[in-house]
C-alpha cells in the first residue's frame, strides 16, 4: 500500500514541519541539480500524506545519479518536484526544502522562467510514453514545438532538425514518423520519440523516469549513451529514475535508494550494488533476479521477495520505516528514527546509510 491510503481511515493528520526556509540564502553549489531537505505532501481538507521527507540529493555536472526504490516510494514525485511540475500535475505541495537547478531556485522561479528551463537546458523523459503526448497532435508537432520555443528556427529548419532528432534515436523512416499520431506508433517507438524530444535542445541536465523500460537491449545500447552525452561529446548530468539494475550499473556513478519517501542509502554505484549497507537495499537487490538470463533459464527457482507491508504514509510513525519488514530489526528501530551516517569515513566518495546496524557496526 502506498500513497493512496484511504483518507477516512486516518485518525490524525500528520504533524508536518512548518514550511521553513533557511534564513540565509545558501549560495548554490556547483551541482547541476541540488535538492535539499525536500519534504512533499499530498494534502486534502481532511488529511495529508507525506510522500517525501527531507530528501537531499545532488546531480553534479556531467554525472549520472540513479534513483531507486519500490513502487510508490516517491521517485517520480522527486522528479516532478525538481522540475517545478508538482503543483501542475498533482495535488502535492512542497512543505519544506529547496531545489536548485543550474544555480536557480526552482521553487521561487516564475512560471515563465521555469518554462525556459524545461525543455531547454533541462530535458525531461516522463514515465509511460503513452501518456506523455497530446493525442490529437502529430509527433512532428510535438518535436518542432519544443525546438521553436527554445531556438530561433523557421518552420522548415525546425522540421529538418526534428527529423535529425528522430534519426538520432534510431527510428526508421523519420519522415513517416513525423506525420504519425502518437497512438500509431509502438510503445518502444513512442519511448524513443519522448527521448528525442527531451534531447532536442541538447540539454545540460536530463531527468529521465524509466527512460528505456519499453526498449529492447539493442535499442538501449544506442539510446543510453545519448542520454549521458551531448552532441558535442560533453557529459550531461542525468537524474535517472529506474529499477533496472543493468541500466544503473551501465550508466550511473552514484545511486540513491529511496524507501517510503526517505533516503535510506546513497553512495557510489559499485559500493551500493556490490556491498549494500541497508537491509532494504539488500532485499531489493536480492529480489532482482539473480544471475543473467542464461542462469535464469537453467535455475528458474521461486523468486525472493522483500515481503511484508509497505508502511502507511498517512499514519504517523516513529522509528525506521522498514522495521516491520526488516530481517535484522533492533529494539531501538521502533523507538528512534535513524539518521544518515557515513559508511566510509575514510574514502573521498560520499556514502551514507540510514540504519542503526550500519552505524553501530562501523563506528
Amino acid at each position, binding site marked *: *500500500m502506498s500513497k493512496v491510503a484511504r483518507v477516512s481511515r486516518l485518525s490524525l493528520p500528520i504533524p508536518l514541519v512548518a514550511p521553513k526556509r533557511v534564513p540565509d540564502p545558501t549560495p548554490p553549489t556547483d551541482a547541476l541539480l541540488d535538492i535539499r531537505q525536500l519534504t512533499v505532501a499530498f494534502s486534502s481538507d481532511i488529511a495529508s500524506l507525506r510522500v517525501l521527507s527531507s530528501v537531499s540529493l545532488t546531480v553534479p555536472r556531467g554525472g549520472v545519479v540513479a534513483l531507486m526504490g519500490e513502487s510508490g516510494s516517491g521517485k517520480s514525485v522527486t522528479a516532478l518536484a525538481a522540475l517545478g511540475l508538482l503543483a501542475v500535475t498533482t495535488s502535492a505541495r512542497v512543505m519544506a526544502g529547496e531545489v536548485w537547478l543550474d544555480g536557480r531556485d526552482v521553487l521561487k522561479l516564475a512560471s515563465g522562467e521555469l518554462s525556459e528551463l524545461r525543455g531547454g537546458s533541462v530535458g525531461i523523459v516522463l514515465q509511460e510514453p503513452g501518456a506523455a503526448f497530446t493525442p490529437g497532435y502529430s509527433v512532428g508537432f510535438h518535436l518542432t514545438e519544443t525546438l521553436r520555443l527554445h531556438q530561433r528556427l523557421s518552420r522548415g529548419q525546425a522540421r529538418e532538425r526534428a527529423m535529425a532528432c528522430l534519426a538520432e534515436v534510431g527510428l526508421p523512416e523519420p519522415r513517416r514518423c513525423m506525420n504519425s499520431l502518437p497512438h500509431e506508433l*509502438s510503445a518502444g517507438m513512442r519511448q*524513443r520519440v519522448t527521448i528525442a524530444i527531451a534531447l532536442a535542445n541538447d540539454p545540460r541536465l536530463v531527468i529521465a523516469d*524509466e527512460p528505456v523500460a519499453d526498449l529492447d537491449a539493442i535499442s538501449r545500447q544506442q539510446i543510453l549513451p545519448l542520454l549521458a552525452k551531448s552532441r558535442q561529446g560533453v557529459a550531461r548530468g542525468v537524474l535517472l529514475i529506474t*529499477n533496472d539494475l543493468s541500466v544503473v550499473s551501465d550508466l550511473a556513478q552514484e545511486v540513491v535508494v529511496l524507501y517510503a519517501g526517505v533516503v535510506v542509502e546513497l553512495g557510489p554505484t559499485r559500493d551500493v550494488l556490490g556491498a549494500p549497507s541497508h537491509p532494504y537495499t539488500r532485499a531489493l537487490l536480492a529480489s532482482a533476479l539473480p544471475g543473467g538470463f542464461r542462469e535464469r533459464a537453467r535455475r528458474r527457482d521461486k523468486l525472493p521477495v522483500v515481503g511484508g507491508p509497505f508502511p502507511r504514509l498517512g499514519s504517523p510513525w516513529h522509528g525506521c520505516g522498514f522495521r516491520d519488514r526488516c530481517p535484522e530489526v533492533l529494539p531501538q528501530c521502533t523507538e528512534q528514527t535513524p539518521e544518515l551516517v557515513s559508511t566510509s569515513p575514510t574514502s573521498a566518495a560520499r556514502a551514507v546509510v540510514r540504519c542503526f546496524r550500519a552505524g553501530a557496526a562501523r563506528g
Partner: protein
Amino acid sequence: MTSSAPPSVPPPPGSSRSHGSTKLGQAPILQTDRLTKLYPLPQGLFGKPRFLRPLDGVTIYVRRGETLGLVGESGCGKSTLARVLLYLVEPTLGRVHFDGKDLARMSAAQLRATRRRMQIVFQSPSSSLNPRMTVYEVVAEGLIIHRLTRSFHERKERVEALLAELGLGPDVMDHYPHELSTGQRQRVGIARALAVGPDFVVCDEPVNALDPSLQAEVLNLLETRQANHGLGMLYMSHDLRLVAQTAHRVAVMHLGRIVEMGPTRAVFETPRHPYTRALLSAARPSDDPQRRSLAALSPSAVDPPPGCAFHPRCPRFARGLCDVETPTLVETAPETHHRVACFRPEG
C-alpha cells in the same frame, strides 16, 4: 466445409523438462496458422499502394499450462501479434484457433463468450484503463459482463481478494487510475485480466513499471495460477531474464516473422539464428567482452529488404542466397523442436 485442419503441433516434451508442479497439457490452447497483417498507408489518389506489414506468416502455438516467451526489437510486431491473437484486430490472412476452434468462424456471441477465456495485460497501464472508472469498476466489469458472480458482495470479495494477491490494499478500489502510481496501475491491469478466470493470457510487458521485488511477487502469482488452472500464457518482454524465468519456450521475432523458436534453455544457451545471437549478446553488461553490437537501425516494416529481412545487418550474410530467398522455419533438433529460419544457422 468443416473447419480447416490446424497446423501440426509437436507433442510436449516428456519428463525431460520438469518445471515446478506445472503439467504441460497435450492440446494447444491456442495456435495460429500463417498470420499476416497488412495496414494500408495513406497514399495520394494515384499513388502506388503501400502497406505496413507488422506480421508476416506467423505460426505459433501455446499449450495449456505453458508459457511462450516472445522477444524481439521494439517495433517488430509483438504487440500487433497480441492483438490479432485475441481478435481485437482481425488478421488480413491466416487463422487463429482457440481451443481447437477457429475464431474467424465464430458468431459474435460465441466470440464474446470465448473472450472470457482469453485475456490480455496491456503494455501501457495508463492508456488501457478507463480514466472514468474506479479500480473496482475496472476489475469487476468482466465479472458483471460474463455473469460470473451472483451478488454484489461476492463480486466485491472476489475483487478484493485478487487485488490483495497483487499487493494492493482494499483502499485502492475506490480510486481512479490517475490517482495511482504507475506500478499500482500496472497491477490493476493484471487484476482486470485475471478476474474472469481466463485459460489464456497475453502479457505484454506486464511488470516493467514494477520494482524487482514486486516483479518477483507478480511473476510468482502468475506461476501459481498457471500451476493451479493450467493457464496458457504468451509473455512478451524486453527483459530477457524475465522471459527466461517465466517461459517454457521462446519465440524470437524480427520484422513480423518468427526467426527462431524452441525451448527456453536451448534458445538462450545455443541460439542458432544470427539475430537471436545479437539480441542476446546486446543484453550482456557493457563491460563484457562478448557483447556484440548490431547496426541499431532496424529495417522498416514498410519496405522490408528482399529475401531474409535480417540480411543487411547479418554477419553471416551470403550474397545471392539471403537477399533473394526467404528462409522458412526448419527444425534443427527434432527432440526439442528447436526451429530456426536461416540458411546459414550458427552453432
